[in-house]
């Protein structure tokens, strides 16, 4: 199991765990983490699972692919550390990952 922490816009942190291979979005939905809507269910077509990756984790998480970069155009307040959580697969390398959720997804 891999532990990941979601910090909402008020600063409240929730640490939950998932199985390697799940997407970060799936882990959030499984544990009913607020702040992740995931309207399209992981098809990279809605931009409602937007997260900000903490700077220390950006290298491990990597950069978005071009399809995801396109979809980020539909998100709000996109920053250099913005990612769509449905496109991040968790693994041992991401154990302890910390991401922030925006104030609103849509």
């Amino acid at each position, binding site marked *: 199991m891999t532990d990941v922490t979601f910090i909402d816009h008020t600063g409240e942190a929730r640490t939950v765990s998932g199985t390697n291979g799940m997407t970060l979005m799936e882990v959030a939905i499984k544990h009913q983490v607020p702040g992740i809507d995931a*309207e399209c269910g992981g098809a990279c*077509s809605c931009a409602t699972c937007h997260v900000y990756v903490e700077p220390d984790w950006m290298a491990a998480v990597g950069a978005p692919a071009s399809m995801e*970069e396109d979809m980020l*155009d*539909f998100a709000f307040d*996109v920053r250099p550390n913005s990612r769509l959580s449905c496109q991040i697969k968790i693994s041992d390398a991401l154990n302890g990952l910390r991401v922030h959720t925006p104030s*609103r997804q849509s």
Partner: protein
Amino acid sequence: MTEHNDAVITTDALIIGAGPVGLFAVFELGLLDIKAHLIDILPKIGGQCAELYPEKPIYDIPGFPVVTGQQLVDNLMQQIEPFHPEFHLGEMVVSVTRAESGQGVVFHVETDAGTRFEAKTVLVAAGGGSFQPKKPPIPDIDAYENTSVFYAVRQMESLRDHHVLIVGGGDSALDWALNLQSVASRVTLMHRRDEFRAAPHSVAKMRELVAEGKMDLLFGQVTGLEGANGQLTAAHCKGMDQVAFTVPCDRMLPFFGLTMKLGPIAEWGLNLHENLIPVDTEKFETSTPGIFAIGDINTYPGKLKLILSGFHEAALAAQKAHRYIYPDKRLLFQYTTSSTSLQKKLGVNG
């Protein structure tokens, strides 16, 4: 968008939502000689399958090891073709009211385009609700909506001689930037990066106009609005380098795609539970007799939001709908494999 029409369209069944479940309802109703009209807020047929994941493979449609969202929609369209369904696209149902008429109960349904229907039965197959434009979480944006901030352009003339700030990088943003360039006093297009998802020829045309000095292209995101009494005077922005800047404008058009909202369904007088419509599992009928809810929009003990569940629900709802439309006719259960009368309806017999 259809023109306002004073004529009322009468139909046996009115299906609200043209996603896979609404489409299959046409088939099940058609086998029972029930004619259907469909309404959808999207300008195209297929609901989420067409809007959210046309290219994505679906693996749990019985009989199809794999099918994409768009293929499923295309197949359903082929399957219901014998029943000649009529579509009303790009319209949102704003009201559904039940009325007693000489022939019994009817439902009066009206869309935001002013199209009016009189239906003997209504099937709500609205999925996650209606696709509506995403509203950027900019402080106080509500105060400017419909006076200075618009999520759709109904009439280009209303933007004549205004300084229009268009935000976004897709086809809607580019198309409106190009269309309004000759109407507005100035068009400023703002996008968060120097790459656009829009059609390449639109992007090329936009860059040409920018090079000629006929419109402005800025990179950044809107962080705040300036103005008073709903009248916008400027947008506060920041670039990807986080440097703040201000864009003078008196109209803003944000194009950030669509999101699903329940929409006016809440105002149709149906019982709702957490934005879903509770139904029984025999007829999939709502708290209002004659109105059914099928697919993702309904809820009942054990509900699974699967397309296949919606197909089953459509079949059972059609059986009960038959009793409303043909109260004197006995319904004989038949198979399409063996019934010559069903095969005739499908146009495959003789």
